[in-house]
């Protein structure tokens, strides 16, 4: 579904210096696959998401989604950021309907679906509340419902649980999996938590910084539905050791180079 070929991204800082954010990224993501991107900060994970969304142009190489070249934002994509960025004047329900509204669809026709999504994410009964009356986890659930409302086939998530406490974070991960299993779609999920990356994914893309490169793509062969117990599985531990090694090897190599 997504095909990145030799993607490069260079941008200019305010001072005019050129910074290489991504170098020679080649990656294939299949339809309905759950792919996580993991790596230390500054490895260009978020930039990669923006390239796929068509929010920023590539400096070299190509990004294709369903065989068409991505040059600008295209429909059928949902985005979730680290912060919920809800509209403080809109109720929970109207915040979910925001995506339909901005897409130029009739929000009234999406009402039932919005209510279903809210119920599915445990927010039934909170439809008329304002964002400031919700906890961080609940706000992020609203943001996810907003992204899911038009039923996009591609979901881009940029550290969506990064601002939540560890317990909520784990809970939200399983919730996302439950929703995804009920209605499959392609998900690109950026995180810097190694366990989270493995627990959610079909495929883990390990990245290293300076400039951002793909270190390795691991196929996670663990049964679904995923459970908390999996974290004690020896296979899970092997995957997480491998990811950690790749990230720290990159770090050491750069350390010696200086």
């Amino acid at each position, binding site marked *: 579904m997504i095909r990145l070929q030799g993607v490069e991204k260079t941008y200019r800082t305010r001072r005019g210096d050129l910074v290489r954010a991504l170098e020679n990224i080649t990656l294939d993501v299949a339809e309905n696959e759950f792919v996580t991107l993991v790596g230390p900060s500054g490895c260009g994970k978020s930039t990669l998401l923006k390239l796929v969304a068509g929010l920023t142009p590539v400096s070299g190489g190509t990004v294709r989604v369903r065989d068409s070249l991505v040059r600008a934002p295209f429909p059928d994509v949902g985005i979730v950021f680290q*912060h919920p960025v809800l*509209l403080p004047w809109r109720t929970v329900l109207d915040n979910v309907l925001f995506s339909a509204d901005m897409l130029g669809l009739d929000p009234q026709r999406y009402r039932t679906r919005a209510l279903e999504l809210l119920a599915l994410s445990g927010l039934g009964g909170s439809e008329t509340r304002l964002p400031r009356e919700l906890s961080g986890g609940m706000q992020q659930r609203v943001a996810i419902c907003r992204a899911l409302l038009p039923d996009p086939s591609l979901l881009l998530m940029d550290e969506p649980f990064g601002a939540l406490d560890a317990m909520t974070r784990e809970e939200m991960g399983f919730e996302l999996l439950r929703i995804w299993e009920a209605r499959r779609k392609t998900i690109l999920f950026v995180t810097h938590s190694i366990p989270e990356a493995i627990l959610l994914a079909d495929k883990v893309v390990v990245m290293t910084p300076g400039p951002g490169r793909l270190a390795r793509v691991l196929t996670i062969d663990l049964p679904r539905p995923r459970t908390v117990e999996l974290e004690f599985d020896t296979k899970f531990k092997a995957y997480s050791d491998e990811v950690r090694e790749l990230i720290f090897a990159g770090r050491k190599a750069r350390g010696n180079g200086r």
Partner: protein
Amino acid sequence: MAASLRRLSRYAVPAATLAVAVALWELASRVLRIPKFVMPAPSEIAAEAWEWRYRFIEHSWVTLYETLGGFALSIVVAVPLATLIVYSPWMRRALYPLIVLLQAVPKIAVAPVLLLVIGYGETSKVIVAFLVAFFPIVVDTATGLAATPPELLELSRSYRASAFKTFVKVRFPMALPFFFSGLKVAITLAVIGAVVGEFIGSDRGLGYVILSATSYWKTELAFASMILLSLIAILLFGAVCLVERLVCPWLAPAAEE
């Protein structure tokens, strides 16, 4: 019980302080026999205000509509200016220095020239009020428009919403708290602008009353006008706060549970 007592003390304490200050003032001017034209007693001011009540309505009305005219004009000019500045770096470079320059010119110095050019009618006072009031609205609105979280703008772009739609549905409402804080500063400045205009040359309005009262040594009348002016400014400020509460109910502090 405790809550209602707290609420009572919130109004009762400042009111009592004011009452004591006024009483001391009255007492001092009676005991020390201070001449009326130097420092009138509160009772003398009140008596004069009562005598002037009908004429005061007329003059207050003049000052009020000069103020509101200048205030309305400053909103109409400032919001598009702020939008241009935020959306176009070129406009920002072209307009911002001019706006700052305009703000740096002392309006009291400009007022006589303005009156000379525009004439001594109410229009010139509206213009002076506008000139002092529009700057905070431009600056605050521009700050608010620039403060939209970048994620929200990216989200709107990913939905391929037009720039106009994004402005109406996201950017402007997001900037409303800033816009209103600009309005709160602007409304009190607009009152000052109108009075400054009246000082330079006019035959109506509270500024005119103050000026002519002092030239006839009628200090108590000048005092009454000043108090009236302050009341108008406070009422207008309160009105802006009320409109803010109505337009942005989500800004009100969350109900305590």
